């Protein structure tokens, strides 16, 4: 039997208003094992903590129950307090009588009764608590960043700045991501390339950063502080170390009609290509789907013109194995496909384009060298209609239920820049509502409306129909004027919703990191731990966690880096002792637990056991890696024999709590 002290907190009036704290401490004083019971206004205050410490010393308490707010709030505080006077911190339990009691009840009698029951359950649990010791595991001082967009770049730069090695894995031939395709950035209108490419070069030149471009993750094993990763470096058929990026091959290659993904297929590149002038690494890549040499063994022109002798048609995929202490996911986003939105006629006319395509059409490095021309006939458009929320905030099932966040601002930017450069152009923007929170954002949007004379019309576009004469009929409703509009447009720009990159889902499975229903990575806590995944050692950077503009992405990227640095500076990690443990004598070796473990913490070993008749027997038994186990308890439920148990939350402890709650008094 433990010697238990009970401490009931008033939380000012938060608890005391709906719970009779005196009655609770009096009732709990009568529970078996309770030798001391009291209540106090603020148990978490220094005076409150001293009250607990003194009682532990004076009464020789072996167990402590705090009736207060949620353990998520102050469990750590109280555990630290009792540890300072020599009690094992895991001998303390918190009964949540605030969030789960006083805040949700109005009637004091009911609240008091429930608080007593919750306290009784915690006391029953403490009776079965055992002192637990936290273990240690070493930390590999190297980080992996998955995705080389602005998020990944910023995270990598910040981690390298702190002196740690960082590897960036980028699936495309160059780092830079979506930002390389953007022309200007809101709200200051500086050129995206001008602010991004120096960072890309910094990455390439930083000796702490290694870039694996044209590479993908193949396998992830291990746990926080000690991940083993296999990276598949795809064959680019060009020796990266020899290629000087002169670009001679890309002008001589006879395969001229390869759709250029950098310009979203609006112009062509060769089969050997460098995505754009500022690519990092600036190395050519051969597209095996189009290269005649790789497909048919005929041509070899690029090898002939390459002065550096960098072309290698026999190059193979290469698997690199590396160990990391932390992994940052920065897989970014893509605009959704618009084939489900026939009403906007995206597939019917070349002159109905997405906003990202619009960026390329206005970019000096784009297919039109920065002059805004219609893709169909190369003429100047005189009436442009922007449609917002295409697939965003869509509960019909065709699109995405969430707000894509960036569209209002970039549409204002597009509209403003168009009016600036081509004042003879009529620009219409159809919106549900304009969302412009953020520093200098609303001012930016107001400038588009007030200074640049963009026609902002509240209402959705019903139909976009291309006409034989090249005009595009836009039918829409103006909700404020309550009238139907028919606009003859030359160009229609659709603000397509954004979605997580398709590579994110399989990656999440590999990392055992959780995702929401939209395939955005879930953060450990929406407010308090926004850049960490619930899986220890996995961090989130940028739009893989939710729609974000560049300033938000960079902030989050640096925040993720700070968290990674905080992890990597440690030589050893203290592990959570509340982990699963298998009773080897009872384990059947059936693998049920291994199958349900979301963290891959359970392995099986063949172990020799002495039998009662003095013979030995080799048995297959489960073994939990305490550094990987997150204490979720799934295995304890799956185990058919009850061999698996969770330390600190054992089946017997939980049953004791249930019994205490169900007990009639």
């Amino acid at each position, binding site marked *: 039997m433990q010697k238990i002290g009970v401490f009931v907190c008033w939380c000012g009036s938060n608890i005391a208003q709906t719970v009779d704290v005196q009655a609770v401490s009096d009732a709990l004083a009568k529970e078996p094992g309770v030798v001391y019971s009291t209540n106090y206004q603020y148990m978490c205050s220094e005076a409150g903590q001293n009250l607990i410490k003194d009682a532990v010393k004076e009464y020789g308490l072996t167990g402590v129950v705090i009736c207060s707010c949620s353990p998520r709030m102050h469990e750590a505080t109280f555990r630290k307090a009792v540890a300072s006077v020599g009690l094992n911190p895991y001998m303390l339990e918190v009964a949540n009588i605030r969030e789960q009691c006083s805040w949700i009840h109005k009637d004091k009698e009911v609240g008091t009764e429930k608080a007593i029951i919750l306290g009784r359950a915690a006391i029953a649990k403490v009776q079965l608590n055992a002192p637990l010791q936290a273990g240690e595991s070493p930390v590999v001082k190297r980080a992996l960043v998955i995705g080389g967009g602005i998020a990944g770049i910023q995270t990598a730069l910040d981690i390298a700045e702190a002196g740690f090695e960082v590897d960036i894995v980028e699936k495309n031939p160059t780092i830079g991501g979506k930002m390389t395709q953007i022309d200007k950035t809101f709200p200051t209108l500086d050129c995206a390339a001008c602010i991004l490419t120096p960072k890309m070069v910094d990455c390439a030149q930083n000796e702490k950063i290694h870039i694996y471009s044209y590479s993908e993750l193949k396998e992830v094993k291990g746990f926080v502080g000690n991940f083993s990763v296999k990276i598949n470096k795809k064959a680019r058929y060009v020796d990266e170390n020899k290629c000087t990026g002169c670009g001679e091959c890309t002008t001589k290659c006879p395969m001229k009609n390869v759709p250029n993904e950098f310009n979203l297929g609006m112009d062509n590149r060769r089969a050997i290509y460098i995505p754009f002038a500022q690519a990092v690494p600036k190395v050519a890549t051969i597209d095996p789907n189009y290269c005649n040499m790789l497909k048919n063994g005929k041509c070899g022109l690029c090898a002939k013109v390459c002065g550096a002798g960098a072309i290698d048609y026999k190059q193979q995929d290469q698997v690199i194995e590396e160990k990391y202490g932390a992994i940052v996911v920065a897989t970014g986003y893509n605009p959704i496909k618009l084939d489900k939105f026939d009403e906007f006629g995206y597939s019917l006319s070349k002159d109905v384009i997405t906003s990202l395509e619009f960026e390329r059409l206005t970019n000096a490095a784009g297919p039109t060298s920065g002059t805004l021309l219609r893709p169909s006939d190369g003429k100047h458009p005189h009436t442009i209609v922007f449609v917002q929320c295409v697939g965003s905030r869509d509960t019909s099932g065709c699109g995405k239920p969430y707000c894509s966040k960036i569209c209002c601002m970039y549409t204002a930017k597009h509209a403003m820049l168009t009016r600036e450069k081509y004042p003879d152009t009529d620009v219409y923007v159809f919106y549900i509502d304009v969302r412009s929170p953020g520093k200098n954002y609303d001012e930016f949007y107001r400038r588009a409306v007030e200074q640049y004379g963009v026609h902002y019309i509240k209402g959705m576009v019903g139909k976009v129909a291309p006409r034989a004469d090249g005009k595009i009929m836009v039918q829409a409703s103006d909700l404020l004027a309550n009238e139907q509009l028919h606009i003859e447009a030359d160009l229609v720009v659709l603000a397509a919703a954004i979605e997580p990159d398709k590579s994110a889902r399989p990656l999440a499975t590999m990392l055992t990191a959780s995702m929401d229903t939209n395939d955005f990575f879930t953060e450990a806590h929406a407010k308090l731990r926004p850049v960490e995944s619930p899986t220890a050692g996995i961090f989130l950077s940028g739009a893989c966690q939710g729609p974000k503009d560049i300033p938000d992405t960079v902030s989050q990227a640096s925040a993720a880096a700070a968290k990674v640095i905080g992890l990597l500076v440690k030589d050893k990690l203290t592990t959570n002792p509340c982990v699963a443990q298998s009773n080897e*004598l*009872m*384990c*059947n*070796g*059936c*693998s*049920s637990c291994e*199958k*349900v473990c*979301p963290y891959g913490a359970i392995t*099986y070993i063949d172990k020799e056991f002495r039998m009662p008749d003095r013979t030995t*027997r080799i*048995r*297959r038994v489960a073994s939990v890696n305490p550094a990987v186990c997150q204490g979720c308890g799934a295995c304890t439920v*799956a185990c*058919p*024999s*009850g*061999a698996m148990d969770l330390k600190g939350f054992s089946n*017997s402890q939980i*049953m004791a709590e249930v019994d205490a709650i169900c007990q009639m008094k």
Partner: protein
Amino acid sequence: MQGMMLNRAKELLSDGTVNRVLGWQAGEFVYDITPAVFETEEELDAGFVYNGFCGNNLSKYLVKETLKDGKILVFLKPCDTYSFNQLLTEHRIDREKICAIGIPCDGKTSGEMLKAKGISGITGISEDADNFVVDTIYGQTTVAKADALEERCKTCKSKKHVAYDELLGEDGEILDSHRFDMVAKLEAMTPDERFAFWREQLSKCIRCNACRNVCPACTCEQCVFDNPKSGIAQKAAADSFEENMFHIIRAFHVAGRCTDCGECSRVCPQNIPLHLLNRKFIKDINELYGDYQAGAEVGTRAPLTNYTQEDVEPSIVYHREGK
């Protein structure tokens, strides 16, 4: 068939492929069949039988047998092969130490079923396609299989062997024999009627543990009912709640792993239709997670221990009104 099996067993024993044979032998009466391990040809000649009474599923005995040295020959009826696969999936038996021979089965009967038909003094049994021919001290009598088959054989799920090293006789097909009809009837009852049904059945339980001991899914190193620390270990049910709980806990423990071999009901001395509890789980799993047959393959991830995005939401269970 018994002759073929005997010859093959002797061959494998004499050429050293196996050093033991797991089969059946008669007890005091011909219908009191027990599983038995034979180590020599003489032992086989003296005791080995295979007939209409040999219902026992031998796969479970391999858990202990494969801990021993040498390879063992086992004869598996189609429904036994499902248990065999499930045990392999759960790493409970060592495939390397087993030579499995699949044997056909046209349904089994029992001494009790025949005695209930007024047949006594049974001294032997043989069968043709539709009938059991029973020898008694009063002479020979014929019973239609339709009248004398065990319940599990009437609703046989499969005559196909899903695991074997070699096969004697013809392999059969997976059958659709309406095995969930009775479960559907129970589901259609009101909760009170259903509770009354189960109270009547489970109140007969004498806690002999035969169902657990014979169940091929119950192979835990230490059963929770034998573990004082589990909080539910008892040797006898103290009240009606405990009578119910024993069987409900057992059904939960084998949920998703039960192959529906029907051994539990076959061995129950009180004739409690225990298989219905397991079948309810199987029916639910089929309906909620798509058709799944435990033991159909080795190593498949069972629906209850495998999360997929397509998994049913808890709300669906509410839509079904708890049925």
